[in-house]
């Protein structure tokens, strides 16, 4: 593995470790016992005792921390108070739905967002430029849960155009094609909601990056060669304006993780977000903690991936 990659990976691991320690400390700094909820408990007394031992409030802090971290390393995130099942199992079960939603939003944002951003840069200060900026800012200002609620309420319930909740039609027939289509139909509203709220960032980043590139001398060289303007903008220009947007891909994971919480809740999309919301309602601390650990992990991974992508695409970084 190249030296820089090794170094970055170790840094990422360190950051993750610190994040986990912070999460752990959070539980202990707060007044009140997180496990003293008298809510629904599907746990046997033994399971509950094991959980207590895990967050063991009677043992020295340091050893508790070790137990915690070792547990995570082994993939053990405790047991859900609500469901009585291992948290890790629940997370894995719900992850695909969130990834599907996230993937759809990513696709939307990075195609439409990139295209609009480049367009704006090329038409800087035009009416179209200003309108796109204002509209995308309005999108950013929109609470995702509110937009989801409104869309679900009107397009889903009132006008019956698209499903307003869930991932699948419970009465639907089997068959791969039919199921896929069904899922896609259910995906439309949540994906549009989350995309509308987050696309502004992508457009902004791309526009700024593109503006900087379009002023550089090698763009003039490209035109002087007699290349078609489309090629000048997209091949010569955009290829260099790609980088900030790539770093955005890494920052995307945390946006996704947070944004999906509300959207999944409003659309009853069975992913990690709605799992977290249910855990909030039931004060199911182990699940929330597990979700937090997973979220932190995804953030660190996302940042690392975008660093790697940057290095791969910019030959200057590699050979330096």
């Amino acid at each position: 593995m190249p030296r820089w990659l090794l170094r970055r990976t170790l840094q990422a691991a360190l950051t993750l470790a610190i994040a986990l320690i912070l999460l752990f400390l959070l539980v202990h700094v707060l007044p009140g016992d997180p496990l003293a909820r008298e809510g629904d408990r599907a746990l046997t007394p033994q399971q509950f005792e094991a959980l207590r031992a895990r967050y063991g409030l009677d043992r020295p802090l340091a050893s508790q921390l070790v137990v915690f971290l070792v547990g995570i390393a082994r993939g053990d995130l405790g047991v859900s108070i609500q469901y009585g099942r291992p948290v890790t199992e629940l997370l894995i079960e719900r992850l695909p739905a969130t990834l599907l939603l996230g993937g759809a939003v990513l696709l939307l944002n990075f195609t439409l967002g990139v295209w609009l951003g480049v367009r704006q840069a090329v038409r800087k200060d035009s009416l179209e430029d200003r309108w796109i900026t204002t509209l995308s800012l309005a999108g950013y200002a929109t609470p995702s849960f509110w937009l989801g609620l409104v869309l679900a309420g009107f397009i889903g319930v009132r006008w019956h155009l698209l499903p307003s909740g869930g991932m699948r039609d419970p009465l639907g027939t089997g068959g791969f094609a039919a199921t896929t289509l069904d899922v896609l139909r259910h995906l439309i509203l949540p994906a549009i909601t989350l995309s509308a709220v987050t696309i502004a960032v992508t457009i902004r980043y791309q526009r700024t990056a593109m503006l900087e590139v379009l002023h550089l001398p090698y763009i003039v060289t490209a035109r002087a060669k007699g290349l078609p303007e489309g090629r000048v903008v997209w091949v010569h220009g955009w290829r260099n304006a790609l980088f900030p947007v790539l770093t955005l891909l890494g920052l995307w994971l945390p946006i996704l993780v947070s944004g999906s919480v509300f959207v999944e809740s409003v659309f009853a999309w069975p992913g990690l977000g709605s799992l977290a919301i249910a855990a909030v309602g039931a004060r199911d601390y182990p699940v929330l903690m597990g979700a937090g650990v997973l979220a932190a992990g995804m953030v660190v991974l996302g940042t690392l991936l975008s660093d790697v992508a940057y290095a791969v695409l910019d030959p200057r970084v590699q050979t330096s």
Partner: protein
Amino acid sequence: MTRVLEVGNLRVSFPARDGRRFFPVDGVSFTLDRGETLALVGESGCGKSLTSLALLQLVPASGRVEPGSTIRLGDTDVLSLKGEALRHIRGRRIGMIFQDPMTSLNPVFTVGDQIAEGVRAHLPVSRGEARERARTLLQEVGIPDPAGRLDAYPHQLSGGMRQRVMIAIALAAEPEILVADEPTTALDVTVQAQILEVLDQLRRARGMAVLLITHDLGIVAGRADRVSVMYAGQIVEEAPTPELFAHPSHPYTQGLFASVPRISGPVNRLTPIGGTVPAPTAWPTGCRFRPRCPQAFEKCQLPPELLPVGPDHRMRCWLAEGRPFRD
């Protein structure tokens, strides 16, 4: 001699802060014949770079070539061209080299790709053929191990090599005219001579006309056939090179020569030209050099025309009137 390029009364305007327009290029005319080199000499701010950009309609977006300007490439009126036709001129009939090869080359593409792209933009060749041509061009511009260098990135090459690559790119589609905007300014002195030599060889081999833009009189001698001196957006003196060097007539040109250090000859103090170059937003009225001219007199309050002072030699100065024409 066939005339390949004819520029008449070229004016380029830009918007000023107060909404009016100013003219960094203000009535420039020159011609270029096949196989000859014309040097356009002037300090920064005189408008020479903009002049060259105007030839390919590459003036920055807010700028405008004013009506009344003409640029004729053989039979073609360049200023009336748009779209496909304009792109046909760029690279295919006029090739251009820019000043700083580090920022003028795209950092994320290999050198070979950038040259081949120039070839394929105008000539109907396959990728493989284009690549082969790129290799040949690298060889022609004097880069050692051309085949190996094709896959190099610009940042992996030295300044001199990058400039050679720029030349290769400019020549990729075999243009009849080469415009070189300060091709050696960003390079070390030793490398400068090499680049100029390469340009010379290529010109002779291909029978190209060259427009050499520079602020350095030193590189003009022995390289250019004719010289036009620019100041404040206008041509102030034009002559064949030997004539100009023997008899610099415009006070500005004289000032330029006086401020150039010479290795041989008596060691004197350098005499710089007093004052500073005027800003394009506020050209002086009358003769634009008047505020700095040691020989200014009353008539200089009127803007002078280009007046003859010698064989094929004109200058924009009223002093020409009082002088006998040299034969």
